[in-house]
Structures are given as structure tokens and as C-alpha cells.
């Protein structure tokens, strides 16, 4: 069973994502901000993270940085989910090492497809 971590401070977004990925047979973890996310990553080593950018305290960029600076956590796939959708934000996100950048609002179906594709690539 693949592990997915959802990081967002919007309860309703979290609720919908939790439902859909549980249904897709993922083990779902949830974090309300960056600090919580890092704690979960260290303990449970998810395969993929859905990461919001604008969060209180520790934001999405910082979380990504933390991952990319660690030998073991570097391989975890990261998808940015953000309402910031100017090309410069997307460019920055990808430069920092995110695997995908999906703008809010997004289609759930599309998100699930992207997540599966990313994980399959990893297996190959």
C-alpha cells in the first residue's frame, strides 16, 4: 500500500483529498502545516506528498527544502497544490525540486491520475 501525505491548512480540502485517496487504496496521512508535515515525514516515510504552499509558520517551500537537503527524504515525490498560479510561482516551485505543480482549483480526477503516474514512474 502506497503512503500519501496531504499537507494543507484548509479543512475542507483535506477532507475531500483524504476521502478520495483512501478510496484509491492509499494509506493517508494528514498535516495542517509545515512543521507537522516534517514530523510525519520523519516518522512514516510517505511515497508522495501533496503540499500546499501558503501555510502558517513553516510554509511549503520550507518543507520542500527540508526534504531536498536530506539524503533519505530526497526521493519522496512532491506535488505542489497552490492557488498561486502565476508562471513565475510555478517556475520557482519546479526549480526548487517539486515533481509537479498543480494550481488550485484542480480536478480531483486529474490529481489522482497525476499521483498514480508519478508513483509508477518511480517503480520503473
Amino acid at each position: 500500500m502506497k503512503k500519501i501525505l496531504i499537507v494543507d491548512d484548509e479543512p475542507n480540502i483535506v477532507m475531500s483529498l483524504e476521502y478520495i485517496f483512501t478510496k484509491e487504496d492509499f494509506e493517508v496521512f494528514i498535516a495542517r502545516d509545515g512543521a507537522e508535515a516534517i514530523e510525519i515525514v520523519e516518522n512514516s516515510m510517505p511515497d508522495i506528498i501533496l503540499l500546499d504552499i501558503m501555510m502558517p509558520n513553516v510554509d511549503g517551500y520550507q518543507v520542500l527544502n527540508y526534504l531536498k537537503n536530506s539524503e533519505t527524504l530526497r526521493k519522496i515525490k512532491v506535488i505542489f497544490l497552490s492557488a498561486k498560479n502565476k508562471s513565475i510561482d510555478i517556475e520557482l516551485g519546479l526549480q526548487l525540486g517539486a515533481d509537479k505543480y498543480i494550481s488550485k482549483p484542480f480536478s480531483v480526477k486529474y490529481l489522482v491520475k497525476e499521483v498514480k503516474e508519478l508513483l509508477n514512474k518511480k517503480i520503473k
Partner: protein
Amino acid sequence: MSSFLVISIIFVYLAVIFYVAYWAEKNSKSGWVNNPYIYTLSLAVYCTAWTYYGSVGLAATSGLKFLTIYLGPIIIIPTWIILMRKIIRISKGNKISTLADFISLRYGNDRFLGALVTLICILAIVPYISLQLKAISETFNVITNHKISPNSILDDTTFYIAILLAIFAAFFGTQHTDASERHKGIITAIALESIIKLVFFLVIGFYVTFYLFNGPVDIYNKASVLPNFETQQTIDGLNGGFNWFLLSLLSMIAIVLLPRQFQVTVIENEREKYLKKVIWLFPLYLLLFNVFVIFIAWAGNVVFQNQQVDADLFTLLLPLSNNNEFLALLVFLGGFSAAISMVVISSLALATMLSNNLIIPYGFLRRFSNAESEENAESIKNIRRISIFLLIIIAYLFYKSFTLDRPLVSIGLISFVLIAQLAPAFFGGLFWRRGSSKGAKYGIITGFIITVYTLLIPFTIDSQSITTFFVNEGLFGIEILKPYELFGLQIFEPVTHAFFWSLLFNTTIYSLVSVNKLGSYRERNFAEMFVYSTKYAGLQEGAYVWKGEAYVRDIRKVLTRFLGENRTERALNLFYMKYDIDKKNQVADARLVNFSEKLLTGNIGSASARILIASVVKEEEISLTELLNILDETQKAKESNKELKERDKQKDEFLDTVAHELKTPITSIRALSEILLEDDEIDTDLKKKFLSSIVSESERVSRLITNILDLEKLATGKEKLDLNENSIKNTILKSIDPFRQLAVNKGIKISLDGINDVEMFYDEDRIQQVIVNLLSNAFKFSTEENSEVKISTHINQNKVEIAVEDNGKGIEIDELMSIFDKFYQSKNQTILKPIGSGLGLAISKQIIESHNGKIWAENVNPHGTRLTFTLPLNKK
């Protein structure tokens, strides 16, 4: 020491200096070349051989008076952060390359004025250069034990050194045709020499004070028993005080206006911010240099008492008389480096002046106008190179043919007094817009004549050691015309006396003529630009108002002739891009005319540039009022443009945030409804939960939209306030009602004890909205047990303060102001997203401000936050 050895050392030393200059020129982008320390050290070209030998000589005969030469600069330099910045900005903005250019441009590119300034500078500085050569020659003779200086020029080492210095200055000084470019090679070499001369001087000072004697006290004790000691060391009452004051003032002027100082401080300045280092580092350098002067002087007086020894040479003779040849050599090299820095920079600055403000505008313009560009660039450089050689050779011959038997100090001070004649025109031009070119010319000429009469003539006569009727009895035997006691003024020494009278007349005539005769419109325009430099700096090419007829083709032709095809093309392309002008335009506008003039100024000086451009354009007169109006309008247009851009930026940022805030609830709505649409197996409870989330997120969207519109209406003043007389207590109570149940649920106590009632005019709905916002803010922070929210009013004479206070954790101090910003979310609130739109407090602020009240936040003891707003107590 053998001459051969000393000459070899000199050549090795020069080779090192040449190499450093060469290296710096090659690595002109390096951090070693471009830093505030190199810049500050290069300013120390102020300390010449005079400082090395003359200060000591003066200290030996007149006590502390030598300090005035450094006291002036030390006092004035801290003001440079403003004064010099202004001068540097103007110079860079107009591609000014010399002091003469600066003054001539300020008074409307006045060709004659530029030439006059050049002449004064040459008269003042060439003897000063001679003096440096003399110092080199004399000290060389002392250290090699030559008794008589050779009579034939070809046998004189100093001659060859002078030629080498000329080659150095000519080679590194004319790398660019544009003289307003920096000369990084020379400057780096000069900075190095500044270190050398200081270190060597400190070494000898240390040696004399602590090796030859047992410290300062010992020297003092031995020197103070010498005859005349007391009289030397005192300031000598009121008269002496005046002399001190005037000498300090004189050196204040000199540190800015000496051509070599103007060159290193203004022209060679790379960044304005270097001045921040200069204002403390340079005075410190000068102080260090002077620490040992008085001790060396006293020591010399003690050691050489009853001997006929030139006090100017104490620094060198002290180690020699103790058979310490090595230290003597260091002193010689230190003095040598001080002398050659001065010779190189002065000759460079003077040569640029000579070529750009005298030779080219008066002799070569016509020839240049017909020649090809490469030839012209080469000719300009050649004129400058020849000028450098000429100046140094004339200085050499001057030293050879006149017996400069006076102490070093007096010749140096005469050149200071001559340079000071430029001060009224220079500083007046900088701060007084009425200062006119006629005033400047008459002032300078008068001051010059007085200096000649009261100082140059009697001094020359004196130095030939003939007593004359003229000096003793005055011209035609008239008492009040005695050159050293003009109009019976007896309190001053010759130098300060001349300085006093010349500057007094100079300034008076400059002001009187300027007040009575209005300058041409051209100089009035430049006066505006110089005096109000900060106001007009942003206008750049637009700052000079120009009306007339000109064609791009003609201007291009002139530019090409001096800058060459490529540089002209590049410069014009830049210009077109900067102002977004169509290249096909045939008619040149004012900006192009000014831009071209500036381009040429760096190469051939402002006066020539003006003449050349004027020859291809037809200019019309503009009246002063018209001029000021146009300048003001251009300025305003620029400012409002900036404001518009700023407002645009703020609007963009606001829209970005609004978009972000709207997208968040929509994301939830979309995700949840997509699931409901696709998934048929979802159980009823979850379905209900999802649907109610969709409802609340939709409410959030609509609340946000209402708030944004509200804010917009209030901010633009589209919504009028509905002012009525209300009771503030009633309004508060109405606002609290919706919170009562919530308070009970969350266990929060609402305290209303501090409310006093008053009747006043306000828009009740709006104020209720504010109170509700403040209350929800307070409730948001009330998460602990025993939470309490207090509402109170405080009635003053002309206003009412209404405060809402909680006892939560408080707001971080740096956030106290920003919580009223749109969409600001405090760091300290609960982790979950707040219910609010992020606009509540911003709207409240807008409402209070449209009531002419104030709103602010503060933290209270022991913890908690108080938000207070005021309403003016207007009875109607």
C-alpha cells in the same frame, strides 16, 4: 649613501608603482581596485612633501600652527556626506571632468570663466609642483651627501625623475579620451603611496620619540628649556586666534577646491556610498599623520640647537645625524612618494583643464570640426599628453631658475590663497541660484588682483632678499596701501591678511554683481539644476530646458566626429531606448540636444561641447518664468507617473491576494462536488457532511465578495456615511447581542462595566460593523480558560475612545500595525484557518478613518490585546 644606490632604489620604487598602476588598469573590475579604502587613501594625496618636511619645519619655528592645515579638513570632511555628494552627483550627471568645467557649466557653459579658472589653477599649482620637485632634489642631495646641486639640467637626477613622472601621468592619464572616466591605475598607485608615506612617517616619528628620546615627555622637557619655546607654542591672543581661524578656513576650502583634490574626490569617485567611509577614515588618516610632527620638530630643535640647519629637513637629518642611513632612506622614500603622488595627480588635473577649458575651446575647435573621428580622439589625447609634459617641465624650470628659498609652507599657502579665489563662485554657485557668471568673473579677477598685490609681489620681492620702498612704505608711499597692512589692518600675518582681503572683496563683488545683473537664461537654467540638484536630478536630460530647432542628422555628425561611428551609434541607441523615441525621427528634441552635449563634455569640456552643439542647432531664448514653469511641469509629470506606477503595483498585489483568497474556498467546493458527482457509493452521512461544507464554503466566497466591495466603496468614498445622533452605549449593546450565545458556549465572560454613555453623530450601522469585527477578533484570541472580553468607553473633551480587550496571548509587537492590512493573518491565532475573510479589520480601519477617527492595537499586561478606536465628539 652613494648616489648610485639611491638612484637604483628610486628606479626600483618607480618600477613597482608603474607596475601597480598597470596591474590595476588591467584588472579594473577587481575588488582590490574598486573599494572605499582605495578611494579614501587616494584622497590623502592632500599630504605632499610639504606635510613630510614643511609641517615639521613650521612646527619647529611656530609651534602648533602647522595643525591648521589639517584642522580645516578634519572639521569639514564629515559634512561631505551631504556637500560632496551633491558635488559628485552634479559632476557625474553632467560628465564634468575638471573644476573649471564645473564652474563654467554652472554659469551657463561660460567659455571665458572656464579659461579664467584654468589660469588661476595653473598659476597656483605650477609653483606648488616646483616645490615638490625641489623637495625631491634637496632631500636627494642631503641623503647622498651632495653639497651643491648640479648646474646643468642634464646632470640633475630630479630632471629625469620629472620626465619619468610625466611619462607615467601621460600614459595612465590618457587611456580614455573621455576625461570624466576614472583613472583606476593612477588612483590605485596613489593609494599605495599613501600607505607608504604614512607608515614611513610613523616609523620615523616613533624612532625619534622613543629611540632617540625617552618618549614625548622627555622631548618636551628638553625642548621647553630652549629660548623662544613659550612664544612658539601659544596661539598668541586674539590676533593669533584670528590667524588660526582663517588658516583653518583656508584649508577647508583647499581640501575641496585644489585641482588634485577635486580630481580624486569627485572625478575618481566610483560610488557615492564610499563617502560614508571617507568621513571618518580620512580625518583619522590626517590625525595619524600629525601625531609625531610636533615631537620631531622639538627633537630637531633640541638636537640641532645653535646649528645653522634648515628646519624643513629635520625629519631627514635626525636619523642621518645618528648614522641611521636605513631610516633616512625610508624618510626619503616616504617624502618622495608624497611628492610624486602630488605631481602626478596635479599635472593630470591641470592638463585636463588646460586642454578642455583653454586649448581646445580657444584654438582647436575649428580644426576638430573638419577632421575625422580617429584623428580627433588622438589629437585630444595628444593635447593632454603634451599639456602634462609642458606643466611638469615648466614647473621644473621654475624651480631651477627661481631661488625658492622660502620655507615650503609659505609657497604652499600662497597657492591655497590663489585657489581660494574660486570659492565664492564655486560654493555660491552650489547654493545660491542668483549667482551669475558676471559676478563670478569680476569676483575672481578682483580677488586675484588683491592676492597679487598683497602677497605675490611683496613675497617675490622679499624672497630676493631686497628690502624695498614698496613693501615698507606702500605704493607711492601711501600708508594704507602697504601690501602687508592693507587699509591699516595689522592683526594678520601676510598669508591670512591676503586671504582675508581678497576673499572679502571677491565675495562682495560676486554678490553685488549677481544681485544687480541677471544672468542669461542659460545660466539661470543651470543655476536651478545645480542649486536644486536633488529636485531635478531625476529629470536627467530633461533638466535643461531647451527650445529651438535641431536635426538628428546634424547632431549625429558632430558626435561621430568626436566619438567615432561605433560609440555614437551605441550612445544614441541607448538614448532612444531610454526615452522610447522613434529612431526615424528627423527632428531632435531638447533631450537629445542635452544628451549630446553631455556626451561631448567628457571629451572636450563643457564650453567646447556647448559651442559645437550650438553650431548645429538653432536655440531660442526662454524667459525665466517660462523656464521655471517648464521645469516644474516636467518634475510633476515625472512624480505623478511614479505615483501612478506605485498605485498600479498596489492594485496588482491586492488583486493577486483577492484571487488567492477566492480560489481557496472554490477549491474545496470543486473537489467535494466532483466527488459527490462521480461517486455513487458514498454513504449518506458523509454526503451530508460534504454538502454542508459546500454550503459553508460558498458562504465564505460570498462574504469575501461583499467585504471586498464594501472596502472598495469606503476607500473610494463612493458610499456616504449616514450620520445620525446615537447613543454609543446602545450601539455597543446591539453589537454584542449576536455574541452572547457564543460566549456562553465557549465560556467567555463579557464585561461591560467600563461603558459610559454619550450621544453623538455617527453612522450606526457602520460603527456596529466595526464593533462586531473587533469582538470577533477578541473571541478568536480567547481560547484559554477564564477568558474575558472587556468593552469600555472613555469620553474626552473632543473625542470618545472605545476599546475592546481580551486576555488571550496577545499579538507580536511587529504585527500590531499590520493587522489592519488587508488579508493579514496573525501568526498567533489558532492553527486552523480563521472564519473571517481577512478583511474585517481593514474595513474597520476604513470606516473609522472616514469618521475622522483613529484605530490602533496594543498589548496589555499581563497578556492580551486591546483594540481601540476613537470617534470625534462632533455635535453636528
